[in-house]
């Protein structure tokens, strides 16, 4: 178990393993994502009140739901960094922050566009769901700037790990904001098994597929950027040197 753990923490081992694994993630991503997009654009039924804006929700709900996974991911990686000083965990955490910021921004942007059509307003400061999601974006930007402000890699890793752990509180607030406060944003709707329901399988099937696509996308994007991080941080090691010469 411990041997496996220390092996997993080895950047070289991760680099070699991910070289083999990547195609097995990229292909499912391509298939699931294109199916989800086609389903959302062509097959999701238009809502009887809100028309074709239901197609926005497939993207919005999937991106929003998966955007909540970044702080827990960074907190777990951060804890591993703090406790076991595992470099690989910090590399993942470092690259998760900008991707998480992208997801948070897209959640706000798509939600805002949807709101402008459905609520008649782009933004509502009194809505706890909206504000707490905006706060998540700022927190992630905070993690990114904290990292770039601290020159010492180890210090930056520890500071970002702590902020990521604290940031998880906000994830809980985002999640339950629609229940704790009376807000404009609707709470999550129970799924229905009947096809004639607006929230029936024709709709949530696309959402579930899109959520799966987003997790695959996060995995692929994070693996790609972590591999870059490994090449940079390990550039003096023998195996990276060998890899570079071999690429000639």
């Amino acid at each position: 178990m411990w041997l496996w753990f220390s092996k997993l923490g080895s950047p070289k081992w991760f680099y070699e393993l991910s070289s083999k694994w990547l195609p097995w993630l990229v292909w499912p991503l391509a298939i699931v994502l294109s199916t989800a997009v086609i389903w959302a654009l062509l097959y999701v039924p238009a809502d009887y009140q809100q028309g074709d804006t239901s197609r926005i929700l497939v993207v919005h709900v999937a991106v929003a739901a998966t955007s909540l996974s970044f702080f827990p991911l960074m907190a777990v990686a951060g804890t591993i960094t703090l406790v076991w000083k595992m470099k690989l965990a910090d590399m993942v955490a470092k690259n998760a922050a900008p991707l998480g910021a992208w997801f948070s921004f897209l959640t706000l942007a798509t939600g805002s566009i949807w709101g402008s059509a459905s609520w008649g307003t782009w933004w509502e400061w009194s809505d706890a769901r909206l504000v707490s999601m905006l706060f998540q974006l700022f927190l992630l930007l905070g993690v990114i700037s904290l990292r770039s402000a601290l020159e010492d890699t180890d210090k930056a890793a520890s500071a970002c790990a702590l902020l990521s752990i604290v940031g998880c509180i906000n994830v809980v607030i985002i999640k339950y904001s629609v229940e704790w406060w009376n807000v404009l944003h609707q709470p999550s709707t129970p799924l229905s098994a009947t096809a004639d329901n607006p929230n029936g399988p024709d709709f949530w099937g696309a959402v579930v597929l899109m959520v799966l696509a987003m997790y695959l996308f996060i995995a692929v994007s994070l693996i790609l950027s972590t591999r870059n991080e490994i090449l940079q941080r390990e550039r003096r090691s023998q195996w990276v040197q060998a890899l570079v010469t071999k690429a000639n």
Partner: protein
Amino acid sequence: MIEAIQFSSFSEFLAMGGYADKVWPVYFLFAVLIAVNLIAPNLKRKRILKDLKRRAVLGGNGASAQANPDSSTEVQ
């Protein structure tokens, strides 16, 4: 499969039931998210490999990388 499609023509599809100005920007932003976060790491990887190769050629095995650690900023 074809019968289940919600639109009867391509122009109807583009019109999105009057919500074209809302639906298409969302899918455009979504496409940007996907494209940027897949293409950017690949471009960066090419840059890093090129840079490391250049250094290997310049100063032999690894020595150059240690000789000028500051040049790592170019890779950012």
